[in-house]
């Protein structure tokens, strides 16, 4: 009996913090999404117009398609990069010291703020930027490449640059937990590199892959700064759409959009968790 009380008390602070700062705001968000509004006022009401406008507008569908597209491409690239970087760190590099050093190197991009990292691409990728000048100087191209900046290419590039580490860390973690004897056993039993990879390493890395995927997908789905800066305002994302509505004081519309986005992202996370049981290895 006393034990139960203590556990309740121990869990209470976190539960309270989550209730006040997560559950209450979410409830308010959902409530506001049914409000009506004009230029200045939120009109407490229970109307479906905000949702009708969200689902009825072709802009929404196009924007979601574009956001999925960004998320999909970014996920695929960060997964490929992240997996092999983690593999290199976990299995190829010898010694804890070197491993830690190389791991720290991976975090260098995070020593500056997100925004600065993105802005730094402009002088690099621009029409008169470093890359174009180098390519022009080397005679590889005779016209500056325009697609490098203010394009979908630039958006994906920035995403990959920003989020690959989120894929590396969890995958690296699961790889470090793999019992090396398992690999030895597989090799002794005659498995080649690819067989070991397919039947030993990848299955045991699944929780890390799932966690990394959740990080990357959630971050990309909710992004608005990267898309706006790197596409030069030419591309839309769901986050950008919401941010535009907020700046125009259309809070109920933004809330409805946010609720839909939240539902979509939760569904995606649920799908990932259904496919891979991350608790198994944690």
């Amino acid at each position, binding site marked *: 009996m006393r034990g139960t009380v203590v556990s309740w008390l121990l869990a209470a602070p976190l539960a309270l913090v989550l209730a006040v700062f997560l559950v209450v705001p979410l409830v308010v968000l959902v409530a506001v999404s049914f409000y009506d509004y004009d230029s*200045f006022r939120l009109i407490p009401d229970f109307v479906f117009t905000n949702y009708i406008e969200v689902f009825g507008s072709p802009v929404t569908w196009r924007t979601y398609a574009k956001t999925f597209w960004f998320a999909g491409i970014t996920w695929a690239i960060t997964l490929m990069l992240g997996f092999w970087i983690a593999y290199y760190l976990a299995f190829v590099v010898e010694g804890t010291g070197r491993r830690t050093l190389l791991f720290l190197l991976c975090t260098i991009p995070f020593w500056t703020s997100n925004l600065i990292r993105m802005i730094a691409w402009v002088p690099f990728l621009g029409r008169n930027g470093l890359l174009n000048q180098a390519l022009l100087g080397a005679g590889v191209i005779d016209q500056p490449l325009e697609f490098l900046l203010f394009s979908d290419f630039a958006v994906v590039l920035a995403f990959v640059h920003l989020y690959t580490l989120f894929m590396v860390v969890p995958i690296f973690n699961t790889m470090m937990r793999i019992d090396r004897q398992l690999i030895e056993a597989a090799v002794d039993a005659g498995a080649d590199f690819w067989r070991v990879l397919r039947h030993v390493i990848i299955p045991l890395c699944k929780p890390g892959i799932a966690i990394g995927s959740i990080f990357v997908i959630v971050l990309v789905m909710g992004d608005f700064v990267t898309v706006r800066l790197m596409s030069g305002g030419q591309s839309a994302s769901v986050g950008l759409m919401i941010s535009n509505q907020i700046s125009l004081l259309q809070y109920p519309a933004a809330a409805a959009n946010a609720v839909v986005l939240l539902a979509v992202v939760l569904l995606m996370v649920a799908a990932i968790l259904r496919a891979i049981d991350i608790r198994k290895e944690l």
Partner: protein
Amino acid sequence: MKDQSLPGRTSLTRRGALALAGAAVGSGAVTGFPTIWAQNIRNITLRQAGTGVSGLNAIAEQCKKDTGITLQLTVMDTDALAQRAATQPRSFDIADIEYMTTKKVYPVGTMQAIERRRITHADKIVPIFTTGRLTPASAIAQGTAPHTVGFVANRLATAFEPSQTEWMTLIPTIYNADTLGIRPDLINRPITNWKDLVDPAFRGKASIVNVPNIGIMDAAMVMESAGQAPYADKGNMTRAEIDRTTAFLIDLKRQGHFRAFWKTFDESVNLMASGEVIIQSMWSPAVAAVRSRGIACTYQPLAEGYRAWGGGLGIARHVSGLQLDAAYEYLNWYLSGWTGAYLNRQGYYSAVLETAKAQMSPAEWDFWMEGKPAATDILAPDGRVMERAGAVRDGGSFTERMGKVACWNSVMNEERYMVQKWNEFIAA
């Protein structure tokens, strides 16, 4: 002007204002009060909510020095300001807002009208703000022209009056005429019309402001210039006109005409300075910022005229008694010359020209207001050399620029629909 992330213009925080007040009192700089109740006003603080265009610390400092009134500035962007003025009227005493915002905010009833007879220089205010005509012969521009939202019937009335009354919604303070900015070093032909923005020669090198109610008017200027059917009122389009304009923009976007869209002041400066864009909608201080980097940039006057904007100071409804007296004192001080000269020196215009002129050197006046070549080096307010002797202001004199306003920044009746269509264009 809309998103005010102007560099180097930070808001005066509460603490900053108090420190400033303390410093001013401590240094004994607060002397020479102009009126009998000035001793009381010395202790009065006015909270002013405004945009970065005119929410300038230098003005608050000078105000403290001249009147003893402590001005507490809060700076935000136009949208947030409109919301604040309409929904939290007790959070400020003075609203420093644009006339187009007034059209939305004033009917909510959070402001009180300003009694004209208490404004010393009321009769010297530039007639754009009273009759809508710069000279008796000039035409009234389209859009939310300041004089159409400048007057009400009495102190608490919320409906605008079509002609001048004794009660003003705002005291005009700052205004300017916007046009396209270009990189003359990268464009080797004269730019003369708004339609040059969509010249295929500039494909992939043009930009437009991504602030819906301003961007769509720039687009309308372009379309009229390109010979498409004229608008009844570019500042108040019908749904069909909005459809037509956004379709035109979407078509251009699909052709890859725009390199980017900009939303903040810095973005427009960077696009232009880096050469990514060579022709775009721009604000005059952004042109100055590009030029201050040593890069050629012209605020190009165009045959069809300018898109103008204007702002002013209004008093919140809750202000009364001594504080209201202080508010009038502040408004009178604003028009008394120092601020006017300060704003004119940045390329904006002040509402009472006569008093500002008295505070400017003849060379400054000739350069900024008469459009004459600079007789001496022209200094920025911070003392840097802004223009060398011999330079001429883009667009010429005050009369040439403000006399050629085609439309004013506006709030349309169909605003919600317009914003929806504009978002379609951005997402297209």
